[in-house]
């Protein structure tokens, strides 16, 4: 036995559905546009959330402190003599110089990241070869060998070959032998990497042996990182000292509602809703007004008419919300966020595959719900209430 009140609501729901179905083209179109806006917002939120979560999960092992030399507001090579200046600071476990930079491949218009360091001195050095499908990292004595990321292999067309050449700044060629390939599982980090030993990188970039690109500092006690970073900044005033915490924080803020594209998406969605709300609030159509008048003559109360409008709006907006969010998940999880990816990678020639778990949090869903469903409910119920309080004979006349 269904309670009387529930039965009444079910009847009103039936009436609302029939009413929606009578104007199905208009309502389905509205729902589709609505779902599209929610899909766009949801996709953006799920993708950026997934990237932020991935960064948070994998960047836990970044160097404790990174030191870069700054001159005239720009980063430049740091002299290895600076390592000596840091030795008196108590608590530093290791200082490892790195040479890294970008190599622009003019024939393919691709930017590769070249990285060189003494990997044997780094944490997890003994396990580092696990990140490769095959091969090993070049040792200090192994000249002319390199480990490459999967996109580098594809772009340079190295499927059947093991040797490739890069140009030095004076346009002379330097050849490398591929001795290892990064695994697909590390694509999110190593897709565009070419790892070689320090001497090769200095030769390629024409850097003198007395400098490096930056210094990685490892600290014995992690709680002292901030203190030691301050001491380093004091000893080396011409440097920028980045701590692990700052690096990890970057990805928590780099994709946010303040970032440009997100603002555009949000603004577009909001403008769409403002137009919709304006259209709805400016009044019901004469046909809709007459329908309300007839219902009132038949004995319907204002509350019942409002309930019909409420059900109609709730159905359209809630279904659009569910469909939009579901489509957003499918877009990010199964289609690598195809619609957002071109904007995200810009003019990049290297397109790393995004194997990400879409981030679906209650806070994000509530945010999208608040921006989409609630304004629509307000915009449709208020004019219905205004109309339903008018005497019916004046409406149907």
């Amino acid at each position, binding site marked *: 036995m269904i309670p009387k009140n529930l039965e009444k609501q079910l009847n009103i729901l039936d009436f609302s559905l029939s009413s929606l179905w009578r104007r199905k083209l208009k309502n389905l179109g509205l729902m589709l546009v609505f779902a599209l806006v929610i899909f766009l917002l949801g996709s953006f939120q799920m993708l950026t959330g997934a990237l932020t979560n991935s960064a948070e999960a994998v960047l836990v092992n970044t160097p404790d402190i990174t030191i870069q030399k700054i001159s005239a507001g720009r980063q430049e090579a740091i002299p290895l003599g600076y390592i000596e200046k840091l030795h008196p600071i108590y608590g530093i476990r290791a200082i490892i110089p790195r040479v890294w930079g970008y190599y622009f491949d003019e024939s393919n218009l691709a930017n590769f990241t070249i990285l060189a360091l003494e990997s044997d001195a*780094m944490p997890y050095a003994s396990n580092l070869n696990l990140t490769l499908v095959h091969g090993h990292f070049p040792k200090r004595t192994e000249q002319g060998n390199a480990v490459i990321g999967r996109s580098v292999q594809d772009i340079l067309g190295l499927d059947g070959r093991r040797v490739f050449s890069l140009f030095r700044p004076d346009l002379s060629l330097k050849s490398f032998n591929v001795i290892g390939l990064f695994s697909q599982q590390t694509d999110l980090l190593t897709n565009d990497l070419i790892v070689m030993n320090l001497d090769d990188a200095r030769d390629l970039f024409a850097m003198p042996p007395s400098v490096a690109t930056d210094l990685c500092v490892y600290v014995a006690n992690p709680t002292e990182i901030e203190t030691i970073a301050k001491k380093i900044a004091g000893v080396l005033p011409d440097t920028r000292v980045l701590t692990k915490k700052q690096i990890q924080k970057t990805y928590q803020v780099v994709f946010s509602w303040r970032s440009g594209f997100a603002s555009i998406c949000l603004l577009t969605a909001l403008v769409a809703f403002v137009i919709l709300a304006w259209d709805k609030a400016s009044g019901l159509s004469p046909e809709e007004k007459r329908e309300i008048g007839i219902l009132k003559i038949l004995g319907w109360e204002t509350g019942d008419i409002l309930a019909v409008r409420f059900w109609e709006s709730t159905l359209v907006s809630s279904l659009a919300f569910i469909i939009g969010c*579901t489509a957003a998940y499918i877009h990010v999880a199964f289609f690598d966020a195809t619609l957002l990816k071109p904007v995200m990678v810009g003019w990049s020639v290297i397109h790393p595959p995004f194997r990400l778990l879409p981030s679906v949090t209650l806070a994000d869903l509530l945010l999208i719900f608040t921006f989409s469903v609630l304004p629509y409910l307000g915009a449709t119920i208020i004019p219905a209430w205004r109309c339903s309080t008018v005497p019916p004979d004046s409406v149907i006349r």
Partner: protein
Amino acid sequence: MRPSHKLFIFILLLMLVDGVLYLHAKRLDNDLKSDRVLQKIAVAGLGLTDLCIATEARYTRHPAVSDPMAPFMDHPGAIEHFPTGSFWNAPENTGQR
């Protein structure tokens, strides 16, 4: 069949789809855990600081360690012009030298 019954069936169908997607998310999370073990080793062993997402500009390839003025370094008064620059927010540590 009442229209409301058709609606309930449609909502059930949507819930079923979302349920399957939830199971997919659980499975993907498990798969990604093994990836993350290797990714953590790569980060530690190579001292990596950034995700490889956009490779067009140094400040979007390595936002965590990039020179804060890199987007505007072409000439005095230069504006930032890479498409990804409009998508990425400025990192928090740009306030520092």
